[in-house]
């Protein structure tokens, strides 16, 4: 190689690493220079994550989630009774000093069942969502990157899939595979795949138009490398948001399937299954058997949504 000439020091060598910051503030106004608008495009800096930690919504969500995680792991240690211990002398007892949340028709302590019932849902939810996110990301990236006929065909299949009620699809899978924790994870993961694929696809389509994708083609990069090495890191924020949102839906779906009798099999304590087992007792007035598991589900969903919202806000800002 010809030795590179080292000309006399030219002006902008000791460039300040810090960006001109006040430019970002004027972008809301029409006349802001184009370069300023582009400068804001980078996201999720460490400062942004500090911003996340400052939001009260995030802390409330995190506290609730942490509470249920502790219950799932150590719940059997501090639950007042064994969740499986039946006390046939005390069926369907109303909340009292001995049984804060009352008992169910078999005399099992509702509080203990609520505390320990978080275990399966907290295992299945993240695993199922991760499975769906991985599959959806691969499918979405491929659709967004290749476009054309592949995108058209895969897109139609995804749309057809989305048109069916999730629960019905899940039924079909469970009937075919037999109910088990593994089946639930697979089913929910597969059901979420097209939903996540759709989000990733649109984000990838935007990135595909960027010049860096053209540049990597000029470097002879393979499609796999462009998709996963170039585009994927840039669509991660979108995937992260979608992932957290899906977590909330996963809790819901698991609870729904359990309620319909396709989820966790009794006598394992589970919120959805307990509601299913006891909701007929609402009419005679044994409300505590249904209300407390339902509140538990609601609190977990809310916790996840609070966290998801905070992350999304930070990524969008």
């Amino acid at each position, binding site marked *: *190689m*010809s*030795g*590179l*000439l*080292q*000309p*006399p*020091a*030219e*002006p*902008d*060598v*000791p*460039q*300040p*690493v*810090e*960006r*001109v*910051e*006040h*430019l970002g*503030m*004027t972008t*809301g*106004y*029409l*006349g*802001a*220079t*184009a*370069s*300023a608008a*582009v*400068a804001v*495009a*980078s996201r999720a*800096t460490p400062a942004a994550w500090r911003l996340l930690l400052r939001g009260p919504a995030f802390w409330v969500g995190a506290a609730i989630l942490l509470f249920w995680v502790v219950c799932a792991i150590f719940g059997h240690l501090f639950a007042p009774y064994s969740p499986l211990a039946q006390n046939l002398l005390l069926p369907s007892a109303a909340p009292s000093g001995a049984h804060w949340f009352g008992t169910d028709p078999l005399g099992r302590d509702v509080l203990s069942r609520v505390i320990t019932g978080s275990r399966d849902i907290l295992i299945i939810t993240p695993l199922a969502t991760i499975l769906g996110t991985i599959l959806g990301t691969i499918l979405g990236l491929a659709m967004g990157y290749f476009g054309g006929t592949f995108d058209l065909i895969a897109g139609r299949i995804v749309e057809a899939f989305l048109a069916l009620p999730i629960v019905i699809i899940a039924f079909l899978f469970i009937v075919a595979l037999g109910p088990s924790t593994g089946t639930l994870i697979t089913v929910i993961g597969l059901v979420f795949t097209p939903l996540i694929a759709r989000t990733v696809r649109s984000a990838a389509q935007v990135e595909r138009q*960027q*010049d*860096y994708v*053209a*540049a*990597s*083609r*000029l*470097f*002879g*990069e393979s499609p796999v490398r462009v998709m996963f090495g*170039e585009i994927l*890191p*840039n669509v*991660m924020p979108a995937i992260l948001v979608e992932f957290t949102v899906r977590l909330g839906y996963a809790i819901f779906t698991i609870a729904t399937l359990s309620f319909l009798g396709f989820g966790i099999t009794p006598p394992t304590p589970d919120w959805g299954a307990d509601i299913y087992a006891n909701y007929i007792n609402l009419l005679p007035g044994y409300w505590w058997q249904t209300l407390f598991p339902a509140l538990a589900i609601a609190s977990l969903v809310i916790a996840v949504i609070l966290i998801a919202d905070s992350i999304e806000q930070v990524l969008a800002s």
Partner: protein
Amino acid sequence: MTADAAPLVDSGAPAAPAPALSVTNLDVTYKVRGQDRLALRDVTFSIARGESFGLVGESGSGKSTVALALVRYLPSNGRVSGGQVSINGLDPLSMGRAALRDLRARTVSMVYQEPGRALNPSIRVGRQIAEVFSIAGQSHGEATASAEEMLRKVQISDPARVMGRYPHELSGGMAQRAIIAMALARSPSLLILDEPTTALDATVEAEVLDLVAALRQEFDTTVLFISHNLAVIAKMCDRVGVLYAGQLLEQGPARAVFENPRHPYTVGLLRCIPRRGQRKDSDRLDTIPGFLPTPGSSIAGCIFAPRCALVQDRCRTTDPPFFLVDATRTSRCFFHEQAPDLPRSTPATIPELAGHETDGADGPLVVMAGLSKTFGGSVRALAGVDLAIERGETLGLVGESGSGKTTLARVLLGLTKPDEGSAVTMNGKPLSPDARRRPREVLRTLQIVFQNPDSALNRRHSVRALISRPLARLAGLSGAALQARLEELIASVRLEDRHLALRPSQLSGGLKQRVAIARAFGPGPEVVVCDEPTSALDVSVQAAILNLLADLQQTERATYLFISHDLGLVRYLSDRIVVLYLGRVMEVGPAETVFAGPHHPYTEALFSAVPSLDGERPDRIRLTGEIPSAADPPSGCVFHTRCPRKLATGECESTEPPLHEDEPGHQIRCHIPLAELRELQRSQSVPSQGGS
């Protein structure tokens, strides 16, 4: 404009009886993450009634902040922290909400850079303009009539039809006219134009500027014209203020300031712009060392001192006051008398590297033959382009947007597949039309520097990863060899080791473009396409990048295809020039021949359209309208619909002229013989089409 414009010495007490606008010691502060940052400091100027004042500065200088502060449109984290503003004797800074609304509605109008974003996309243009008159109390019928009248004044030929359209149906130039019509509807006493033509093509820009100049006469409006483009300011303004890091450093009559600048910053800025006759090899651009200070940083002395070649101890400790240069001019510099003799920060000439003209091979390096590209079955972006790129030359490619410049580059690179029958050869060997099918050895030889580094550099990768990857992929380097080449590249684009670990978002625009250049040169390409590589950059950064490109061409023995809409840049850098129009080559020839003329009428129009700092150039011809759709190109010569020199014989409408060569190496696609063109262009007596 003489007595009224009397400069303000230090204190800044307005000297004129009642200026339309006076700004006194204005400070603006932005609160960023709990910290106050001074964005404007001690800005003082005034505009006399009917005068046009230009505010020029690079990005980050605070130009737009001035405009926003005047009408209290600052974002919520910004506030005026000192000073006074007076518009027509009114004080917008202290008035109540209702009065402020009234001021914005009646007294001040603003026109922004992007016409597309200033109009409501869901309301017809006519209604939006009429609304301005309705608010003034006119009935529906009157307002509509007034709107139509206003559109006619901004030279829209068929106002009734335009009024029925939605904003997206208007071209950029047309939309900007409509906005100017709205802005002038109330006969405002102050019109603020913030980069009004930056988003427009040169020919359209020329039309809009002509229009603004004509309307200013007619309405007797006071204008505050904000732009980064010194030539535009020079053309449009009586007086000019040079803004730097929130401070006005120099002000005075535009012509005087630009011809004989008296502040080191203005001097440096003007030296960054290629002037007539300057060439990359003989008379290089100068640059301004250092960087804009971080906003809000506290600077003891002169704000420009860290970058100034004339700096003395006094400058670092004492903030200089305004010095009177003469009766009409001020400069904020202790040494304003020495400013014109500012020492250069880069040498004017560089030593020629010997013996790299040819590598023994003969013939052009790249030959493109019958290059056509049709999008969507009907849009002919390129129509049979034949072009050769010689070894080691810089081929400049000019044309308006929509002329096919970028498509041509993408076809050459293999990013866009041309139509059947197109052929590209390099070193005599045919190139596959698809980059994915090209072997690495071929990919290595053809690289590109994109226009926008934000899009071209993956923001998730570090600078090291960005530059290393093509070295590994195409040059087959690894380990110590890769590291050595990486360091060599970094040094040659004048980056530092500490930059390697950073992400693009942590770099300024100029540094990002340096990374992109280092990446493109990494594998050792023979041809580098430069697609408007400096259009997203500031003037002072642009000069450094242009010099860098010129250096690299010598040391790396590269051939350039240089695409730009900026004729000054093309002239500075190019050996030969190609003029494209609607996907056809209109003219091709050695740079100096093309610039000296006689030129193709389209080339002539392009030259006429570009405002210049080199004295008043007669605006000989103007193009009306915008480039026709490539889906439905005009018959015969595609330029005949806009050609000011169209022949009366009808030949232009019926037959497409061939590209004929009257001078060696200089080809023109026109029915008018060269001699006749020379005669026509010398006489300069062309009836202006439309225009004013």
